[in-house]
Structures are given as structure tokens and as C-alpha cells.
């Protein structure tokens, strides 16, 4: 249900991570198993949009971090989700 790009942005919010670290982090905080194909499809898209960037590293496991644009997008998305959650919760209470 949740867009994998949003999950990656959320995972990188507390610091840089490489692919496998993002995968395990997402499984821990969202309970969602993101496949390697899905993860790297989303990473490609986010890097093209300039919302994340690769960190220079000698290791094959290249870490990524949030850019300023990416952080702003994540905040906007969180705001929208927060409004959605509040609205839905209120309606459920009055239903």
C-alpha cells in the first residue's frame, strides 16, 4: 500500500544507509518486505529526482543520504499523511 519511495525517504531520515541496511530498517519500522528489484527501482527514481544522493565510498555497498529537496519532500508527505490520518480517525470516531 505504501509507496516504496516514501519508505526509503523515511529510512534515510535518521542518517545514511546502504541498500541492505535500508531493506532491514524498512522491515523493522514499517513491517514491509521490500524486494531488491523494488528497492533499487525506487532508489534509481529518487536519485534521478535529486531527493537522495550516493555517498562516496570504496565499499561495493554504496550508502545513500537524503538531500535538502528530499527532506522537504518527506516533510510534505508526512504532513499530508498526518492530515489524512487525523481526518480518517475523526470520521471513524463519529461513524
Amino acid at each position, binding site marked *: 500500500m505504501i*509507496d516504496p519511495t516514501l519508505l526509503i525517504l523515511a529510512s534515510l531520515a535518521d542518517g545514511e544507509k546502504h541498500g541492505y541496511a535500508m*531493506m532491514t530498517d524498512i522491515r523493522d519500522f514499517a513491517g514491509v518486505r521490500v*524486494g531488491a*528489484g523494488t528497492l533499487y527501482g525506487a532508489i*534509481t527514481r529518487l536519485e534521478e529526482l535529486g531527493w537522495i544522493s550516493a555517498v562516496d565510498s570504496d565499499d561495493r*555497498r554504496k550508502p545513500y543520504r537524503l538531500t535538502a529537496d528530499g527532506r522537504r519532500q518527506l516533510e510534505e*508527505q508526512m504532513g499530508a499523511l498526518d492530515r489524512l490520518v487525523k481526518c480518517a480517525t475523526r470520521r471513524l470516531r463519529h461513524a
Partner: protein
Amino acid sequence: MRTWIALAAKLYPRHWRDRYGPEFDALIEDTNPDWCELANVLGGAMKMQLKSGTYWKLAVAMAAAGALAALAVSLRLPERFMSSAMVQVHGESWIGVEGIQREVLSRSSLAELIQRPSLDLYRGERQWMPLEDVIDLMRRNVQIGRKADGRLSIAFIYLDRDVARRVVQELVTKFMETNLAIERNRQHVYQSAWNEHAPAGMVMEVLDPPAQARSLGAEARPALALAGAHLGAMLVLIWRWPRPAWKLAAFATAGCLLATAASYLIPNRYTSTVVMRLVPPIDARRWTASLPVEPFSNHVHRIAAQILSEDSLKELILRPRLNLYERERSRKPIAEVAREMRDQAVTVKEHAPSFEISFTYGDPRIAQAVVRELVTKAIEGNIEEQRNRARAEGGQYKLMVEYRIGELLEVLDPASLPMAPVAPNRTVIAGLGFVTGLLLGAVTLAIRRPHNPSIVRAVPAAAG
């Protein structure tokens, strides 16, 4: 599994692998690979290929996969076999090869073959299809071809190699026996009527007996593989369609479904058919010296005009047992109803030396009853006509009528009881619905402005 996933990862576009390949391979090494992971990587590779615009590679891969899948399916499908025999025809027949062919392929003849315990044809189909449909199915599987040098090929396609060969053997026997019976009868009545031996008629001899049936599946496999490849490539192209194309497809599908549902509001119509044969005089050469034989087409037209005359149809419509077109009769004069019946519901088709009379109506049993009445009228009319002519002309004609060797009208296939409706044509209606839906979709897309995307989906969809 790790090897399979590594191979799947190679399907990503080259430029993508140059950039992400090493870290992607490292991720695969870290994960616990399973079938889900493999499917995920394959899906990711396909999407990335499409996104990168090099979808022709994917089309080629999908075409190959489609061809392989089609081959696999063709190997799983039940095998079909074709057996054939060749018969040489010498001389001319009283009713011709077409007449004998119609007799051999008549409903009664094929029904007897289908139900013969030693053959027991189409056992599965007979459990869920009416016998009429099974007979039609068998007719489609019988192939009879006439060659220029008087040879006749008889072939049959079936699921069982041995049964296919035996059926061809039976068909050849039926051809020979029918011809022999006709010739024997002709000799007998000729001798009775003219007190001399009849000139030689048609002789059939088997040139090639039914051969061991050959497999049709092996011959069809290249075409199937090609169709599979075509389908695979088409799937990729469809996947590339932009969103409006999917919306158009949805409109067209909805139109198709609605039209099909609406078609069930139209009452069904059923057609009953009889096949009749017009047998020429048994000794036309002698007879035609003084009295010319009427051409087949003229004779059929005359019969049709007689049974479909306004008075004849009025009598049928008003017959209490049939009580046809009750609603129409309350709105229109009976003469108009009779004209509409003749022009729209009754058809006469010629296939010399036989012809078909069909009648279409809302009730299958009444359709059959009407065709039976039309047959009775035609035969009675023909007998009456012959008697009148015999009385008027006397001599040889009187003798021919007495020995029943004049122009005879015979029923080859009795009036069928239709099981499946002939109208409404739901395929055409569904097609029209599809086209209408497509047009409506195009108009809707043209006048509708795109709306703002959902706030939650503001992040563009990831490739994964």
C-alpha cells in the same frame, strides 16, 4: 537460487548496470534469496528496460518466452490425427458424387457412425452437447475433396489415431455402398419399366485405402510458436501504452460487457432446416427425347413459389396447432404477416442436386413443425403435379409415374430441432458495444481535464 537471481540481474539495461550493478550484486549477496526475490528482480529488470526505452530487447525476450510457452502448451494439448483415403470415380451417377456425399454426411448417416458402439465417437462431447452439435462437429472434421481426374479424397481428423483410420474406412464403405444401392435400385426399376438392362452407371474403386493417421500437432507447432511469440511481443507493446490508452480499453470493455448483457433482453430465435433432394428421372436420355427435363434451379424455384405462396402461408399461420405470429396478426393484416414470413423467416438454398428449406421462429419446436409442414406441402405438390402431367401426357410419362421413376422429391435430412439460437448474434452485439465504448471513451477523454493527483501519491511512483 542465488545464481538465478544473478542471471535475472543481468537483464537490467547496460547503463543501469554500469551505475548500480556492483552495489545491486552486493545486496543480492546479503539477502536470503527465494522465488519471491527472483520474481521481484525479474519484474524490476522489465520495468527498468521499459523505462529506459530499450523495450525492443524486452519484446524479443518476451517473444521468445511466448514461443516457448506456446510450444509447452501445444505439447500438453490432446494430439489430433488425420487419416485419408483416395477413391477413383468412373462414369456418371444418377444423383452425382455431390448427392452421394450429402447422403453420407447426412444427419442420420453421421449419427449412426457417432453412436456405433465399436467407434463410440465424441463420447466426452456427447455428454454436454446436443447430438445435432456433435454431428456438426464431425462434419467439420470430415474433409472431402474432388480432384480434376475424377479422384475423390476422403479424410477425417480425430483424437485417436486408430479411430480416425477406422472412420475413414467406414466413410469410404458408405460412399461405395450408397453408390451401389443407388445403381442397384436404378437397374431394378429400369428393367421393370423398360424391360431391358440399364446402361452402366457410376463405379467407385478405392485407389488408396485409409492410411495410418498422421499427427496434426507436429505440423501445427511452428505456427503455434509463432503465435506465442507474437503474443509475447504484443504484451510488451500493450504495457508501453500510455494511461489514456488503458482508459480507452476500460471504456471499450465496459461497452462490450453492457452490450452483451443487453443482448439477453432480446428474445432468442431458432432456425430449423430440412435438406431435400430432387432426383432426376431414371432414364432422362430416353425420356428427354420427347419431354425436356426441367433445369434444377427452375424446379426448386417452382417448388418454393408453390409452398411460399400467400395462400399457403396464410393457411399455415392460421393453423390452430401452430398459431404463428399471434401478436403481429393483431396489428397487421394477415397478408402482410404472410409476406413478412416469406421474406424474412423462410429461406431456400440450392446445392444441386439437393436444396435446403429453413424457417426461423422464436420457438424451436414450432420452427421444426413449420418446416415439416413445408416439406409435406412440397412433396404433396410434386406428386399432384406428376399425376396431372401423367394424365395429360400419358405414354411414357404415365409409365414413369407409375414406377416412381419420374422426378422425385426426397427428404435427405429431416427437419432439425434447433438447440442453439441463431439470433440475436451476441458476438456482433458485443463487438458493436466494444466500438461504441471505444468512441465514448475517446470523447470523454477529449473533453475531460486531468484532475490533481492524490496528496499521498504526490511522490512519483517508484520503478519498483
